C-alpha cells in the first residue's frame, strides 16, 4: 500500500474523515495518528458548557416548580394569578422544561460542531468509541441531561489514561448511575433498609453491576457468575448522586455522593477474591481489579480492533493489544499504539462500513460545514442512530450487516440528498478528493464529473459506495 493510500486511511479508517487540506499537509500516516495520543480531547471546545453539578441544581429547581404547580392545581383555593405576565408556577415549569431541553440541544450542537471541525479525528473517534462502549441513552429520562456531560467529564479526560480511571469515572457519573438504576439500589442489609423495613420496600438493583461485568469489562463470556453480579451490586450500593433537596439551594460541590446508609456493609467476594468492608473504596477496589483482568483486556481490545480495522479483526492485532493492556496495567495509549503499530491494521483491503453517525460527520467534514446538529438530528433518527440514544446498554452495533440493508441504504441515499442541500456547495470532485484521497476510484470520479449540478454531484458523492466505507 502506498503512503498516499495509507494517509487516506489515517483520516478515514482511523479518523472521522478528512477535511479540506488535511491530506495535502500531512506526509507520515503513522505520525498523523501518533501525535494525537495525548492531551485532553476537546477541552477548549466544551469549556463553556455547564457541569453536571450545575444541571443537578437546575433540575432540582425545575422539579420544585413542577411540584408547586401541582399543589396549586390540586388546591382549588389557590387560583392562578390574573396578571398575564406574572410568572405562574405553570409558566415557570414550562420555562424550566424548555431550559433543560435547550441544554440538551446545546450539548449536541457543541459535540457535532467539534466532530465536524477538529483536526484530531483519531482522538475524537476514540472518545466516541468509549461513549458507545459505556452507552447511556437519552431515552431514560433521569439520564437525559447527563449523557453528553458524561462524555465531557468522564471520558474525554481519561481517554489517554488508564482504563481503570476511565471505568471509575464513568461508573460514578450521574448519567451511568441513573441510566442503570444504581441511584435507587439499596443494600438489603443497609441502615436505611433496616430502619424502614416493613414500610416501603427498598432493595438491591443489579442493573449497573451486571452491565459493568457483561459489557464494560469482562464481556459476556468473561467467566463471571450470577453471584459475582449480586456481590458487585452490593459493593456499589450507596453510589449515588445528590438528591434534589441537596441540590436546590446551591450548586452541589460534587455530582457523585456515597451514601453509607444505603450501602450494604460486609466483605464481598467477586471472581473468587475477597474485598474487605471499606465503604466506597470496596467497589473502587473491585473495579480496579476488573479493569486489568485478562478477560477485560481481551474483550475491550477485540472491540477496539473491530471498531478500527474490520468487523472480524485479525487475531494477531487483538492479541498484541491485549498483551499491551496486560503488560501496562491497562494504559490505554499503549493499547492504541499496539493497534496503529500493527501492519495488519493498515491492510489495504480492510474497511469499515460507516455507521449513520460516521456518515454524517464525514460528510460535514469533507464539505467544511459545521451545521448546528438540530437540523440534522432527524436524519440520524431516521437512519437509526440518533445521538446518545442506543436501544440498549450494549450501545449501537458496530458491524456492516447491522447498517447496510436495502432499506437503510435507500434512506442513506435520501440523507445524501439532504446533506447536499445544506447551504454550502463546494465542487463535488474536489470534495471527493478531500473525502476519499487516493482511494477515489475512476468510476466514482467519472460519475461525479458528469453530474448536472454541484448539488447533485455532492449527493452522488455521499450516496456512492466509496463514501460508505472507512477504507
Amino acid at each position, binding site marked *: 500500500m502506498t503512503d498516499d493510500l495509507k494517509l487516506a486511511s489515517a483520516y478515514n479508517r482511523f479518523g472521522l474523515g478528512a477535511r479540506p487540506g488535511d491530506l495535502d499537509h500531512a506526509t507520515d500516516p503513522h505520525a498523523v495518528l501518533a501525535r494525537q495520543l495525548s492531551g485532553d480531547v476537546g477541552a477548549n471546545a466544551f469549556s463553556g458548557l455547564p457541569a453536571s453539578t450545575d444541571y443537578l441544581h437546575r433540575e432540582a429547581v425545575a422539579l420544585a416548580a413542577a411540584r408547586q404547580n401541582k399543589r396549586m392545581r390540586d388546591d382549588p383555593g389557590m387560583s392562578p394569578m390574573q396578571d398575564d405576565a406574572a410568572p405562574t408556577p405553570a409558566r415557570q415549569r414550562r420555562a424550566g422544561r424548555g431550559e433543560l431541553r435547550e441544554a440538551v440541544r446545546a450539548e449536541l450542537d457543541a459535540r457535532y460542531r467539534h466532530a465536524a471541525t477538529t483536526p484530531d479525528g483519531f482522538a475524537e473517534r476514540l472518545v466516541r468509541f468509549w461513549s458507545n462502549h459505556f452507552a447511556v441513552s437519552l*431515552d431514560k429520562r433521569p439520564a437525559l441531561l447527563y449523557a453528553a456531560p458524561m462524555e465531557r467529564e468522564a471520558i474525554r479526560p481519561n481517554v489517554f489514561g488508564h482504563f481503570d480511571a476511565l471505568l471509575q469515572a464513568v461508573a460514578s457519573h450521574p448519567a451511568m448511575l441513573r441510566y442503570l*438504576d444504581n441511584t*435507587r*439500589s*439499596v443494600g*438489603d442489609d443497609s441502615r436505611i*433498609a433496616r430502619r424502614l423495613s416493613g414500610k416501603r*420496600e*427498598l*432493595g*438491591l*438493583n*443489579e*442493573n449497573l453491576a*451486571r452491565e459493568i461485568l*457483561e459489557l464494560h469489562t469482562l464481556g*459476556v463470556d468473561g467467566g463471571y457468575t*450470577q453471584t459475582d*453480579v449480586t456481590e458487585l451490586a452490593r459493593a456499589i450500593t450507596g453510589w449515588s448522586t445528590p438528591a434534589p433537596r441537596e441540590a436546590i439551594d446551591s450548586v452541589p460541590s460534587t455530582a457523585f455522593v456515597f451514601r453509607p446508609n444505603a450501602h450494604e456493609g460486609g466483605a464481598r467476594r467477586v471472581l473468587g477474591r475477597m474485598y474487605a468492608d471499606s465503604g466506597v473504596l470496596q467497589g473502587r477496589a473491585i473495579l480496579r481489579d476488573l479493569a486489568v483482568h485478562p478477560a477485560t483486556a481481551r474483550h475491550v481490545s477485540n472491540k477496539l480492533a473491530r471498531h478500527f480495522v474490520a468487523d472480524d479483526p485479525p487475531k494477531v492485532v487483538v492479541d498484541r493489544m491485549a498483551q499491551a493492556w496486560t503488560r501496562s496495567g491497562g494504559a490505554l495509549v499503549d493499547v492504541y499504539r499496539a493497534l496503529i503499530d500493527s501492519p495488519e491494521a493498515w491492510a489495504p483491503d480492510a474497511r469499515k*462500513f460507516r455507521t449513520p453517525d460516521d456518515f454524517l460527520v464525514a460528510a460535514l467534514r469533507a464539505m467544511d460545514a459545521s451545521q448546528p446538529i438540530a437540523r440534522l438530528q*432527524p436524519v440520524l433518527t*431516521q*437512519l*437509526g442512530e440518533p445521538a446518545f440514544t442506543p*436501544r*440498549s446498554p*450494549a450501545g449501537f*452495533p458496530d458491524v*456492516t*450487516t*447491522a*447498517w*447496510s*440493508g*436495502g*432499506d*437503510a*441504504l*435507500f*434512506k442513506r*441515499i*435520501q*440523507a445524501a*440528498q*439532504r446533506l447536499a442541500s445544506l447551504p454550502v456547495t463546494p465542487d463535488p470532485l474536489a470534495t471527493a478528493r478531500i473525502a476519499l484521497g487516493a482511494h477515489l476510484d475512476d*468510476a*466514482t470520479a467519472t*460519475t461525479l464529473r*458528469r*453530474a*448536472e449540478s454541484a448539488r*447533485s454531484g455532492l*449527493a*452522488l458523492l455521499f*450516496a*456512492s*459506495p*466509496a463514501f*460508505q466505507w472507512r477504507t
Partner: protein
Amino acid sequence: MDPSRRRFLAVAGASASLALWPRLPSFAGALRGNDDVRFIVVLLRGGLDALHALPPVDDPDYARLRRDLAVTDALKLGGGFGLHPSLAFASQLYASKQFLPVVAIAPPYRGRSHFEAQDNVESGGDASAHLQTGWLSRTSAAMAGAEALAVASVAPLSARGPGHVRTWSPPFADDVDPMMLQRLQGLYASDRDLAPSFADAMQRSGDMGSSGALRLPQAMQAAATFMRANDGPRVAFVEDTGWDSHGGQAYQLKRKLGELDAGLRAFHDAAQSIWPKTVVAIVTEFGRTAAANGTDGTDHGTGGVAFLAGGAVRGGRIAGDWPGLSPSALFEGRDLHATTDLRAVFKGVLADHMGLDRGAIDRQVFPDSVGARPMTGLIA
C-alpha cells in the same frame, strides 16, 4: 400536526406502497407447505415480566413474592391465571378462542444477558451455538425462498442468513431523484458487499411514505398491510424495545402492555382477510425474578411467557406446564422455572400451521434442537 396524526400518515404511506411490493410469482408455485398461511413473530426486547403480564392469580406464592407489585385487577382467564388489565383486546381474543398463553417458557440460553438471550431467540440455536444467522431467514430459505419481512430500521439477527428477508421501516418523505439511482447503479454493482442491498434499495425506490416514528402499533399495522397481499410475505418479524423493568414496573408495563394490546388490535384490524390463517407469536428473551426488587421492579430472570394469537390458533386456554412459585420450585431460588423450550412453540407452528416438514425444521431451521419436540395442539 399532532403526533398521532403524523403516525397515522406514516402507516398510510405503508399501505400506499403496497402495490410496489415486488411480486414474486415464480416463488408461489415452488412453495412447500401451506402457501396461504401467515406467521408473524413479535419480539419484545428487554425481558417482559411474565408474572406481570399473565399473573398467576391463584398461586399463593405470587402475592407473597410480588407484594405491592402484584397485579390485583387482572382480567380473569381461568386456569389460575389472569391477564393484565391493559391487555383488554387480548382478553377478547381469548374469549373467542384466538389467544393462547404458553407459560413457563424460555429459549435454551440460561444466562441473564439481554443481548445473548435475544441473539439466542433470534438465531434459534442451542445455548452454545452462537449462530450467525437467524431462524426466520432460514425458514424463508426452507420454504423455497418465500420472502420474509422484518419491520425494523436495522436488520435484526433473525433476518440475517440465507433466506430472502427484507427490512422495512417508514422512509424519509424526500423523493429520490431517479437519475441519481441510475448513476449509482453502476458504482454499486462493483461493490461486492453492497451490491445486493442496493438492488433491494432500487426495488423500493417508489416506496414513499411520510416519515414518522415507528411504535409497535404502527409497526404491526404496517406488517399486516404487507402480509395481507396475495403474494405478501408469509413470515414476518416485528420488534419492540422498552420492556426492561428494573424499577417503576407497574407504571412502565401498564403503558407498554397497552401498546402491545393496541398493536395486536392494529394487526387484527389491518390483517382482515388473512387473520383466520394467521399465527402471531409474541415472545421475549427471558423472564424476570419472581420476587420484586427494591425499586418496585424486577431483575433479569429465566422463565417467561409466550402469547400466540390469531384466527389459526387453538386458544381460549392456557398451554405449557406451570411449575409454581413455591421456594423449592424456583430456578436457582429466584426465577420461574422454564419447563418448555421456546423453540418447541416455534417448531409446533412451523409444522402444524406452516406445513414445513419435520426434517427441514430439525435440520435446517432449528439445528441442534432435537430435545425441543414441536409442541402439538397449538393450531385450531
